[in-house]
């Protein structure tokens, strides 16, 4: 159960987040578009793409397998690197093999979790960063023209972050022997799905 102080803190954070989400400028500023609709559209984008979804969960899982400081560095750094990829996509800079790369990301990250791989953090960061650019590029290219762009961007960045958190949550049992097996099986499942996506796109 939450203590009073933690409950109040969480309540404040939730209210602040709801403020961001619920801001609807439909009657005031045509230029901003429909912020709530843009946020929702962006939020759903990673969730409606199974390749995005499983890869992002795998990032959270692998962060938990790697342990601190990767556990918290990845959720902080990933959105920023993804935004760089997104900016390339928005600007129309082509990147080769984005869709194949996204499928590969699910395969590689899933395998890393399944194998409980713990390379040096800089190697793990490079791998994740490369995939973050690809995922961001895909989101940026698919940005709908009619949505409020900032709200859309915040939406898909938030959803991506929450998927990481889901992965970290799943891997919270990694400390226990049975939990370790579960996490690695989930990783294997993600790798298998990534392989299926890759074959489908080859």
């Amino acid at each position, binding site marked *: 159960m939450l203590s009073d102080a933690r409950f109040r*803190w969480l309540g*404040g*954070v939730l*209210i*602040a987040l709801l*403020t*961001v989400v619920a*801001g*609807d*400028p439909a*009657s*005031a*500023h045509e*230029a*901003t*578009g429909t*912020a709530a609709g*843009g946020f929702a559209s962006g939020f759903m984008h990673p969730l409606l793409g199974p390749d995005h979804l499983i890869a992002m969960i795998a990032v959270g899982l692998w962060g938990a397998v790697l342990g601190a400081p990767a556990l*918290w560095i990845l*959720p*902080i*750094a*990933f*959105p*920023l690197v*993804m*935004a*760089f990829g*997104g*900016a390339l996509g*928005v*600007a*129309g800079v082509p990147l080769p093999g984005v869709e194949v790369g996204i499928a590969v990301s699910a395969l590689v990250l899933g395998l890393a979790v399944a194998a409980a791989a713990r390379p040096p953090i800089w190697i793990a960061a490079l791998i994740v960063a490369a995939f973050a650019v690809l995922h961001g590029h895909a989101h*940026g290219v698919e*940005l709908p*023209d009619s949505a*409020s*762009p*900032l*709200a859309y*961007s*915040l939406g898909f*960045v*938030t959803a991506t*972050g929450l998927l990481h958190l889901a992965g970290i949550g799943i891997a919270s049992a990694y400390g226990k022997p049975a939990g370790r097996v579960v996490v690695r099986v989930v990783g294997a499942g993600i790798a298998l799905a990534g392989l299926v996506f890759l074959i489908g796109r080859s």
Partner: protein
Amino acid sequence: MGGNRLRRARSLVLATGLVAASSACAHGGFEGVGTFYAGLLHPLAVSAHLVALVAVGVFCGQRGWAFVVDSLPTVAAATMIGLALARPETEPVAGPLLLVAAGFTGLAVALELKLPATAAAIWVALVGGVIGVDSPTDLATGSAERWIALGGTSLGVLLLFAWCATPVARINAAWQRIGIRVVGSWLSAGAVLSLVLVATGRGA
């Protein structure tokens, strides 16, 4: 002492909110509300303002409660100065500038950057000022209605800033601090993407 300051600040925020609820005038940018209320709601209506305010509020909250309280008059004054200077011609420049400011502020939060107090205060003032400059109104210069609208907007900015900064200033646990840094990265990422959209002509 810290508890008393917190209670006084809360009372001030609540009292101004209750006072604001009693105003009603003829015109507003939002249909069905008065000029003061329309101004009060303005920061919520513009995504870039909202993101910048959340970012700067979280940034100040990370520095602690004392800095948040000290920043309140800075934010208020800077916003009012910016509002007084706001013109339709300034919007094309102020809008992207605000996104840049939001991006850097979010990055500072993600990195938990500890700027010197003076530099941080100047940064907060700049963001408040740019928000003001990016909020022109078409109400007649010097008219009472214009001042009412600007007053409402100043108060809206201040309330939203305090609302975001207060819970962050109260956190102690390591996991909460990491969560705030994650939020900072989200805000920065969103601002960067939006800036690129504006630069490529696809954004508002």
